[in-house]
């Protein structure tokens, strides 16, 4: 496989981490085989809460995948070269997230051996069909872009011309994957919690907060572990995106709360009461709802103060809070709350079981493994390319293949292989200090 050999070598710490992930995925796979044999009855799902953690993770991760556009747009569309080193990481995060989505869909299926029926008997009136089309298309687009961008970087060549329309297509496509995912929910007549026109906009807002927050955390981690620095300008730029997106998300949530509680229509309020107040005492759902709400505001406080937002320590805390809050909100509460109360007014508690949590963590471990391998390859390619060429564009600072943070950041700004040749020239002079 392309460049895969670069993922096979690494430090002892790297090897241990990969081995640990593989071992955990193995355990989760065995548990999944048990689920296949026994049935989805081993999960906490039930007649009334018929989707749970799996579909919640799927929904959340579609957002993470879609949020790659938040680096693709400034880098490719607005030619903001400081996003150069981050873009490849964002795109490969999208590839990993979509793959996890597909895994969660398959795992949630009662009869996964029949999964191809979706293609054999396509139903154009089913949103799930279009979700499959948009997700697999997005995976395909991002896989092509990532592989070719890496290839270009390795050869220190500009991106092939035909890739430009592919990248441009991937931008509306990213918006579409999360819109279609929202349509899965908001098009259902009897589920009042989901049947709201702001569901798709809110999905996008929360995605564009949670995804870039995760990307910032991953970039900071990559720098700490490998010295690969995406640059302060990119981090700061993305932090602004997180801030605006989180504000939009909170605003849309307030719209939901106002509409429900001021109109005082029980159909609207009963779900929200369950989510934020519990039912006659604290429930797991109620606790999740409250903590999620609390973290939303806790994250906004440092994000809104420029001095704190630019401090890496505060930004790390804020990004962790954004990610956790939105994961709880969208990855758990959104799905469970839509089912409670049920159409017949039943409130059924849903608590994921140990096998269910293990399988879920197994898919997250697989995602972590994909990210590790993709980032390892991307960083190795960059280091190689940097080692060969760094003296030409930074005379005084040629250091090791993975140089200091400052060096790496410079290389990203100045070289920008993987930019299109025509669009790259105009602004490079401005960026050069």
């Amino acid at each position, binding site marked *: 496989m392309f460049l895969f050999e670069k993922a096979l070598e690494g430090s002892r710490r790297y090897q241990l981490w990969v081995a640990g992930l593989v071992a955990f995925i193995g355990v989760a796979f065995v548990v999944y085989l048990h689920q296949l044999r*026994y*049935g*989805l*009855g081993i999960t906490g*799902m*039930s*007649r*009334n809460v*018929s*989707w749970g953690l799996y579909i919640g993770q799927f929904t959340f991760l579609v957002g993470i995948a879609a949020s790659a556009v938040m680096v693709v747009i400034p880098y490719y569309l607005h030619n903001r070269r400081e996003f150069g080193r981050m873009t490849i990481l964002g795109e490969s995060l999208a590839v990993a997230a979509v793959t996890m989505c597909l895994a969660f*869909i398959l795992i*949630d*299926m*009662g*009869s*996964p051996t*029949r*999964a191809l*029926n*979706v293609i*054999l*008997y396509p*139903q*154009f*009136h*089913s*949103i*799930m*069909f279009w979700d*499959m089309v948009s997700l697999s298309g997005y995976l395909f687009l991002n896989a092509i872009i990532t592989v070719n961008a890496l290839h270009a970087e390795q050869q220190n060549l500009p991106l092939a011309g035909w890739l430009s329309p592919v990248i441009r297509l991937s931008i509306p496509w990213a918006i579409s994957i999360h819109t279609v995912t929202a349509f*899965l929910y908001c*098009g*259902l*007549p*009897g*589920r009042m919690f989901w049947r709201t026109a702001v569901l798709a906009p809110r999905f996008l807002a929360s995605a564009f907060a949670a995804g870039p927050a995760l990307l910032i955390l991953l970039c900071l981690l990559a720098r700490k572990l490998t010295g690969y620095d995406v640059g302060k300008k990119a981090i700061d730029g993305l932090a602004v995106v997180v801030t605006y997106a989180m504000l939009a998300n909170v605003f849309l949530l307030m719209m939901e709360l106002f509409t429900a509680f001021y109109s005082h229509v029980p159909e609207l309020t009963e779900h929200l009461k369950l989510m934020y107040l519990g039912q006659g005492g604290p429930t797991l759902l109620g606790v999740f709802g409250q903590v999620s709400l609390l973290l939303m505001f806790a994250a906004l406080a440092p994000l809104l103060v420029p001095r704190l937002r630019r401090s890496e320590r505060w930004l790390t805390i804020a990004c962790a809070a954004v990610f956790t809050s939105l994961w709880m909100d969208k990855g758990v509460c959104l799905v469970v709350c*839509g*089912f409670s109360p*049920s*159409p*017949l*007014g039943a409130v*059924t508690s849903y608590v994921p079981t140990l096998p269910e949590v293990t399988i879920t963590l197994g898919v997250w471990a697989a995602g972590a493994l994909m990210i590790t391998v993709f980032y390892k390859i991307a960083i190795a390619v960059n280091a190689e390319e940097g080692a060969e060429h760094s003296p030409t564009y930074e005379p005084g600072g040629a250091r090791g293949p993975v140089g200091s943070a400052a060096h790496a950041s410079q290389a990203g700004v100045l070289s920008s292989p993987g930019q299109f040749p025509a669009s790259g020239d105009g602004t490079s002079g401005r960026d050069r200090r």
Partner: protein
Amino acid sequence: MKITRKEFLKLSGAGLVLVFGGRELAALDRAAGATFPGGAKPRPRKQWAMIVDTAKCAKEPGCTRCIEACDAAHNIPAIPDKAHEIQWIWNEPADVVFDESDVQYLDAARRDEQIPVLCNHCDQPPCVRVCPTGATWKREEDGIVMMDWHRCIGCRYCMAACPYGARSFNWVDPRAYLANPNPDFPTRTLGVVEKCTFCSERVVAGKLPACVEACPEKALLFGDVNDPHSEVREVLSESYVLRRKPELGTGPNIYYRI
């Protein structure tokens, strides 16, 4: 050449058929017929429906004869865990079935009155709309919302879509909970969704649904609601009836006579 609105509708209808397949043709045809009274009469098509006479049903408190008959006829497993239960027809309290009913000052005994609920075989079934494989569909000839248990992938999207909670999923192997399987009806496998089929297998043989036949009070009336001379139409023409959640536009075909 001047095209009348009707001709235009027909032409665009033919175009739509090319795109969406033949199934939509009949519906379009009916719609055109309904819009233009002078045009062709809507094609007579059966739509099986049921009237539940709640007064008659209440005469036998605690009766579950219809449920038992259905369970026996359709190999419905007796799963003790409520979370994994399979239900085709079952009882719910009256105020749950009709969420707009006002019961706050009603006698406790009457408030607990149980009313049978089942799949509504909707005119516009949301479950059919969302199914990604066509494993559930509305049968053209008689309006029954059918299930293909061999095509269902168990995604449970239909369960999320059904506003009546009429669909059940096989969370565990149902065959382990069947005491005396009926050899004339298929059992289901792990991981598929199922629901009431209006006894399509009995109706096709000219018999009444099992629940209708089993009711000692004759509280369940089954017939073709599209036939103006049918018994169900006769009852509907002279009684006030309720349907569950008509405001959702699904067009349920189970009527409750109050």
